[in-house]
């Protein structure tokens, strides 16, 4: 334990800003790289607009997910909640003639209800978050498929397309305004309300929260309800953006949003929240994916790039939070220890077997006969 009398080290002074440094450094890196590689196409106004439009979709969910993850939870069902609430809204408008001004709030409330179900399953039935929301992801997706039966519901009233892709002349797109508004609301919620305060307390020390009389379960449910409502809002925005919705929409929302939040410095181990970081994380992922498209790299590399960014940023946070950074003498020294040697031999054996198998395969290879 450090004593407060010791002069504050550089690290201690940086500590509060660590969350935001990582994603900003990576955003700068993307900007610099694209500035060299493809400046004209990447920095076109229309392209920047595209980046913002893409990011806006994820902002509400990243805001809500920040609360869930700070409470040591996780919500894997947001993609399906977005799709199901979008489809329910589409049915209300197209089949039952509901006014779009009523259907949109109904969709968001339905999302909140799905979040409530998630929360109750986790807190009342004691199903772990990971399994509970993964299972409910299947349930909600299944309902969406049952309802839509593979149909694509399209062509909605103007209000919806305005939400999804409208533009205030000379200003940013409407969804971007909605996204930023939810992030600001999330920031205020986190720092100025009981809910935000207790969210951090629950994630930081659940026993202490319980002992000081905080209703841990109730605030967990609140977080999942918020997550559900924001997922539904994203579903509404997606429907408006594409002017169409189908049961298989929004497939990877959950992982994309969790990635953005974690890249932004919110700790998966709870207690450490950064709304600004989540905002930066969302921007970073959208900028990166757009950069890959601009560089005409095959679409499938997006998945590789996202994974690499997540692993490297989480590893960076883990390293920065390690107190004794040079105690072990660095990476190479770790290989000298008996345990490191064993690991080295194990890895070598694994790779050796693989090479041997490849060699055998190559040695006995025959002319491949085209099949079919």
């Amino acid at each position: 334990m450090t004593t407060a009398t010791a002069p504050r080290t550089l690290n201690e002074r940086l500590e509060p800003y660590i969350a935001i440094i990582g994603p900003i450094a990576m955003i700068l890196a993307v900007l610099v790289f694209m500035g060299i590689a493809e400046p004209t196409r990447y920095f076109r106004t229309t392209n920047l607009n595209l980046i913002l439009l893409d990011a806006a979709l994820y902002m509400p969910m990243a805001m809500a997910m920040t609360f869930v993850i700070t409470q040591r939870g996780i919500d894997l069902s947001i993609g399906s909640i977005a799709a199901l609430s979008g489809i329910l809204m589409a049915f209300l408008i197209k089949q039952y003639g509901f006014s779009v001004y009523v259907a949109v709030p109904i969709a968001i409330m339905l999302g909140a209800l799905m979040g409530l179900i998630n929360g109750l399953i986790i807190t009342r039935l004691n199903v772990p978050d990971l399994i509970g929301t993964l299972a409910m992801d299947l349930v909600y997706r299944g309902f969406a498929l049952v309802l839509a039966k593979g149909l694509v519901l399209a062509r909605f009233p103007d209000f919806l397309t305005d939400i999804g892709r409208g533009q205030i002349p000379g200003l940013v797109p409407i969804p971007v305004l909605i996204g930023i508004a939810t992030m600001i609301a999330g920031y205020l919620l986190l720092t100025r309300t009981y809910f935000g305060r207790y969210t951090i307390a629950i994630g930081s020390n659940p026993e202490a929260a319980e002992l000081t009389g905080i209703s841990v379960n109730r605030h967990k449910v609140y977080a999942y309800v918020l997550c559900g409502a924001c997922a539904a809002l994203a579903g509404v925005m997606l429907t408006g953006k594409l002017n169409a919705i189908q049961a298989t929409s929004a497939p990877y929302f959950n992982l994309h949003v969790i990635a953005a939040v974690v890249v932004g410095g919110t700790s998966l181990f709870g207690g450490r929240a950064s709304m600004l970081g989540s905002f930066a994380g969302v921007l970073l992922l959208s900028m990166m994916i757009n950069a890959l498209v601009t560089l005409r790299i095959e679409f499938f590399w997006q998945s590789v790039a996202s994974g690499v960014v997540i692993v490297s940023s989480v590893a960076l946070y883990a390293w920065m939070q390690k107190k004794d950074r040079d105690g072990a003498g660095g990476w190479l020294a770790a290989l000298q220890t008996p345990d490191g040697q064993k690991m080295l031999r194990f890895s070598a054996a694994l790779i050796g077997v693989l090479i041997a198998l490849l060699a055998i395969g190559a040695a006995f290879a025959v002319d491949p006969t085209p099949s079919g």
Partner: protein
Amino acid sequence: MTEPLVKMRGITKRFGGVTALDNVDLDAQAGEVLAIVGDNGAGKSTLIKVLTGVYQATSGEMFLDGQPISFSSHADAIQHGIDAVYQTLALADHLDPAANMFLGNELTKTIMGVTVLDNKRMRTETERVLMERLGVQLKSLDAPTESLSGGQRQAVAIARAVYHDGLRVLVMDEPTAALGPQETARTLKLIKTLKEQGLAVILISHSLDDVFDVSDRIHVQRRGRCVGVVKTKESTTQDVLGLIVGAEEAA
């Protein structure tokens, strides 16, 4: 002797077939430090958990200032002015000291009909309570609580208990167990400060040195029973040790 502030009479607590407390009496005066000592499993923690409302006694009665009391929960006990500082301190390490001090009891203000947390006032109040009641000044109220030293964390946890104006009895469970010598001395000083302010402090400790340093009377538990209450000034470590291990009983 004046009427004790806290009076527990004939407290018995059974967990299934196990009798954790057997007919225990306890008295604590305002403005004194009562130490509770005993071996592991002697019933110290159970006894104070009954007092703080975490457990309910199987039988027996309690009085606060002559009035009979019974608590259905810990929150109930806090309402009556009895609070505890736990060994784990129950602090949320990622929050700043002010947020921790008011955890579960936040100060709020109303802006345009919306109730929001008053972070500014919580800070100034934290600073005031730490300084006035405990004589502690933290270098920074911005840093998360995890960056504070053990003694400072203790001070924040104690400040949380003493902020409640009606606090009359403070129970401290092993406050010095995880502290170094310097921090221990500081914590013992805090206990003396609280005692001078007229609180009844009940201290559970394994460290007889600390107990003899700070307490006025020592209540010795052994196998769920109270085997003696001695005045600290009139006894020695040997006497108390004898009571704890039951040497006199055996002799």
